[in-house]
């Protein structure tokens, strides 16, 4: 191992684990001893990672309240950063909260972290064009049954057992912190970006049914059949038109093909 490599590895451990360096590595002097000098790096490392997480996890900060800082401290101690861009440091936070005591006892925290992270990753995901109503008019009437929609790649659907989206909304709007509420049945929250703005909203149960099927590549006829099973034959098509119009207006669809 080279001297350079040895020095850097020992510095790394001195910063991460707050270990004392062997005295022959770093010099102290009349201005400051070696330990005080290393403390600048130890302190700075933790501050920078915590600050980066605060930017990405606004909803979690709202939900966790006074527990937020301690949560970040534990994550920073448990997870060294492995990406060159500090913005990506939060990619493991939701997973950490799912297994680490005591936060695993409160699954709403991991769920909130997932939603914050979905919003963060949608923010600078690859640009994609979206289709409007007029684009679908090119589909011949006889071909609609085999129509398959291509959805935005930045679109994410999160299963939420709690009203996590309300916490994020409160943060984004600067409004009062909501009360935590557990749903009788988990709900799906859709996160996507249109142009440069990230959006999120809860999906109706039947909308999620056909959106999930559409993501899986099912045809328009199949989507209508799923709605018919929910609402009956006569109500299925009007509902499908309503849902499809909503998707088009929201910019969720980037293309189509025929099965």
């Amino acid at each position, binding site marked *: 191992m*080279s*001297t*350079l*490599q040895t*020095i*850097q*590895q020992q*510095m*790394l451990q001195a*910063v*991460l684990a707050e270990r004392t360096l062997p005295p*022959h*590595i*770093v*010099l102290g*002097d*009349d*201005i*400051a001893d*070696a330990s*005080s*000098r*290393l403390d*600048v*790096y130890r302190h*700075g*490392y933790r501050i*920078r*990672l915590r600050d*980066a997480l605060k930017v990405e996890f606004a909803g979690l900060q709202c939900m966790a309240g006074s527990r937020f800082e301690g949560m970040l401290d534990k994550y920073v101690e448990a997870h*060294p*950063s*492995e*990406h*060159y*861009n*500090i*913005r990506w440091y939060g990619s493991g936070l939701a997973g950490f909260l799912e297994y680490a005591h005591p936060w695993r006892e409160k699954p709403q925290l991991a769920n909130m972290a997932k939603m914050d992270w979905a919003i963060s990753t949608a*923010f*600078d*995901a*690859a*640009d*994609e064009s979206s289709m409007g109503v007029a684009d679908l008019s090119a589909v011949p009437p006889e071909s609609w049954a085999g129509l398959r929609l291509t959805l935005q790649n930045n679109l994410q659907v999160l299963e939420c057992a709690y009203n996590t989206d309300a916490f994020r909304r409160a943060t984004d709007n600067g409004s009062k912190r909501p009360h935590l509420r557990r749903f009788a049945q988990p709900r799906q929250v859709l996160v996507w*970006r249109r142009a*440069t703005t990230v959006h999120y909203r809860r999906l109706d149960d039947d909308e999620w049914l056909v959106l999930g099927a559409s993501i899986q590549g099912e045809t328009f006829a199949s989507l209508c059949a799923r709605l018919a099973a929910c609402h009956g034959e006569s109500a299925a098509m009007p509902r499908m038109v309503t849902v499809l119009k909503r998707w088009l207006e929201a910019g969720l669809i980037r293309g189509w093909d025929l099965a």
Partner: protein
Amino acid sequence: MTPSSATRPGSLPYLGYGLGLRVEHYEALLANPGKVEWLEVVSENYMVSGGLPLVWLDRFRERFPLVMHGVSLSIGSADPLDEDYLARLAALAKRVEPAWVSDHLCWTGVQGVNLHDLMPLPYTEEALEHVVNRVKRVQDVLKRRILLENVSSYVTFADSQLTEWEFLAAVAERADCLILLDINNVHVSAKNHGFSSLDYLRGIPVSRVQQFHLAGYEQGERLIIDTHNAPVSNAVWDLYMEAVRRFGRISTMIERDDNFPPLAELMAELEHARALAEPLLQDAA
């Protein structure tokens, strides 16, 4: 020190007086650019797939000359160069067509772990050779010479055989790269290590300096901490004037990374830099 008329290698342009571009000032800067002549963007902020960051970048690119300034090249790390990072940096440079690309003479991580800090190097022949080889590789990939910036440091390695300025000068000469001289960082390191900031300036080859950074710091209990979160100090303004006398007309910018004031305050600092430098440059002409 006397003004130098030494010619600079290469043909990078003189850009005048600029600012580090930060999100906090996007709208104000587009609405009223004042006398800001160019902008320095943090490369990593725009090494993304899409979305708002690149929209803003394109807006500023239409209005200002840009230079790219990275924080994650980790040119001094014992780990292999991150080829994925390098490819993304090259792609961004192709999009932006900056006047130049810079990063820091430091390492930011090792063993696959990133400290997100500008860690100082031991100033040894081994480290020098290592850095020089890597700078050459980076310059080959980017197809341009890069600038390396001196960092503020808080530790001195027992193994160091050279001064910081001897090391920086040797890297620039052997790798044929240029220098981004952060005047604040020279002052911070000089105070923290007890060396002369003027000795530092005298040790830097005039022909290699392409850009100045000016910034502020915080006084810690024993050490000065380079926070870039405060106005430029009087001591740094004094050192800046010495630097202008030695290096001549150098593209200069104010770099603020935290505790952001209204844009007008940074513009006023920039005008102060201009007011200090221009009489010296005219006297020297």
